[in-house]
């Protein structure tokens, strides 16, 4: 098992190198040069040239790519932000807690409500409850997150005055943004839970559990849901990825100083090191989460564990 975990972690390295290469390639398409972007329009051309030279911008593409990787690996140096001339990593460490708190809270919320509603719909298939949950799930999936956020501000901040509409200075400030992300993620969770549960409740072991007189709650949650968990775990994992995208929108709507709004402002000001590092950061995080999901399988499903141990 440990061998497998180590192997998987080592396999992450080429994937992340590939991600760096892709992002580096895309960012390289940006017109303009760092010297001009840092010093501004009014700077003298010779100053710009000198700065470009110092930053190694005039070297060939692969040399720059290699140096970029070298700085990351040897010095954990992801470059200086064009805008602030401070290390980008420091900025990310300041901003990440906001995004992380929101992501965890909304994954938690959307999983609990998504699974419960999905299970209810499956158990009550073909009833009015089932169809209303299905329609609700569909609406949640297609509601644009930023619009949901604005509607909530309209209702809870402007009309009712219960909750603040922007900022992140207290716990209260997080309620609306977290709800916004959770609602967007909940729809697909509801639909997936419903479809896997529909299959699970028709299995023989569920009939057996009913036959031996187990209470309905236990049959549904203990026997059926437990066996339908595997696809749900994957979906929670990939939900994190979607949430990073959702964070960009939600943080913009609610003016939360997290990584999402940092990316948007960096893109606007063409702060390339910041955009690159944030993207890499999210990609690494997402890969690690998906790795955890794979490993979690082993704990949920003994058959998969047996496969890992043998390989």
């Amino acid at each position, binding site marked *: 098992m440990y061998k497998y975990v180590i192997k998987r972690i080592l396999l992450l390295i*080429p*994937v*992340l190198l*590939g*991600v760096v290469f*892709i*992002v580096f390639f*895309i*960012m*390289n*398409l*940006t*017109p303009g040069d760092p010297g001009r972007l840092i010093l501004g329009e009014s700077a003298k051309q010779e100053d710009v040239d000198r700065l470009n030279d110092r930053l190694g911008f005039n070297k060939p593409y692969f040399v720059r790519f290699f140096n970029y990787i070298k700085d990351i690996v040897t010095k954990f140096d992801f470059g200086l932000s064009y805008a602030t001339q401070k290390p980008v990593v420091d900025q990310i460490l300041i901003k990440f807690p906001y995004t992380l708190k929101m992501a965890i809270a909304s994954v938690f919320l959307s999983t609990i409500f998504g699974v419960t509603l999905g299970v209810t719909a499956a158990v009550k*298939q073909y009833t009015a409850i089932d169809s209303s949950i299905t329609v609700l799930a*569909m*609406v949640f*999936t*297609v*509601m*644009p*997150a*930023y*619009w949901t956020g*604005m*509607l909530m*501000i*309209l209702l809870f901040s*402007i009309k009712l005055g219960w909750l603040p509409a922007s900022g992140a200075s207290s716990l209260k400030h997080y309620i609306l943004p977290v709800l916004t992300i959770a609602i967007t993620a909940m729809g697909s969770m509801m639909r997936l839970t419903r*479809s896997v549960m*529909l299959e699970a409740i028709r299995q023989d072991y569920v009939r057996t559990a009913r036959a031996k007189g187990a209470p309905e709650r236990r049959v549904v949650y203990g026997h059926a849901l437990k066996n339908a968990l595997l696809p749900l775990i994957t979906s929670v994992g990939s939900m994190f*990825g*979607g949430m*990073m*995208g*959702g964070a*960009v*929108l939600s943080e*913009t*709507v609610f003016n939360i100083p997290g990584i999402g709004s940092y*990316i*948007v402002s960096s*893109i*606007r000001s*063409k702060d390339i090191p910041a*955009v690159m590092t*944030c*993207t890499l950061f*999210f*990609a690494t995080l*997402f*890969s690690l989460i*998906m790795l955890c999901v794979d490993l979690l399988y082993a704990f949920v499903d003994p058959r998969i564990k047996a496969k890992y141990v043998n390989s």
Partner: protein
Amino acid sequence: MNEKKKTSVPAKGKKQNKAKEIWRRFKKNKTAVAGLIVVIFFILVAVFAELIVPYEVALKQTKALREPPSSAHWFGTDRLGRDVFARIVHGTKVSLLIGLIGTAISTVIGLIIGAISGYYGGRLDEIIMRLMDMIMSIPSMLLSLAVVAALGANMQNLLIALVVGQIPHTARANRALVMSVSGQEFVKAAKSYGAGDARIIFKYLVPNVIGPIIVQASMQISSTILSAAALSFLGMGIQPPQPEWGYMLSEAREFMRTSPYLIMFPGVTILLLSLAFNLAGDGLQDAFNPQLKD
């Protein structure tokens, strides 16, 4: 009609029957039909946009700033005094075009990559799939943002950004589909009489998986529309003054307190269109695979 049927080649007749069968099953699904009707309605709005309300009205700035809905301006006016109804009507064209073209391009490219990967297998498959894994580990919203940031914000680059974000997903799904049929007898038969690889892929494999691919594509349209609107909302998509729903919402943000209707109309329109595409796509999927339907 009957005569035509008789004269057509047997294989073609079979296909027509299958299409009829699918349509028959689709028709029974009321929500799916409702979705399709709404989609057709939006397509008609896009096609006849100029007749409904001229494009100039959508751009014309008047002195009537942020006026609530009235008989003169059905959906009110925005911060520059432009008619919101006209902007929504002309925004339909943009959203539909991006949704349909973006999905079509990513489906075709994804199909080619997936088919090559699934058919050849082995090392090539391994390399292509690892590359797709790399792209997929960047959240697609961020990838699209990065592409637009690098290339600049306009409609063409927005399409490129959306397609780049979607290709890994379509390639992966199509590879699985191609693999599921590539071991079958008719492929072996084609190989045995010496058909070339390209011929096998495009003549035998692709036509046999085209059904599920269309279903997938129909489900993808709404997410393409939503992503495009989201990027425009962030100012990374369609650029003003061209009317676009997502951007209209971002303009309306400042005036939520005084003019809430400004966020209602574009929002409801995005919701309706993507919901309709989703319902129709779901119905199509059920009609294609009746056995999957619970």
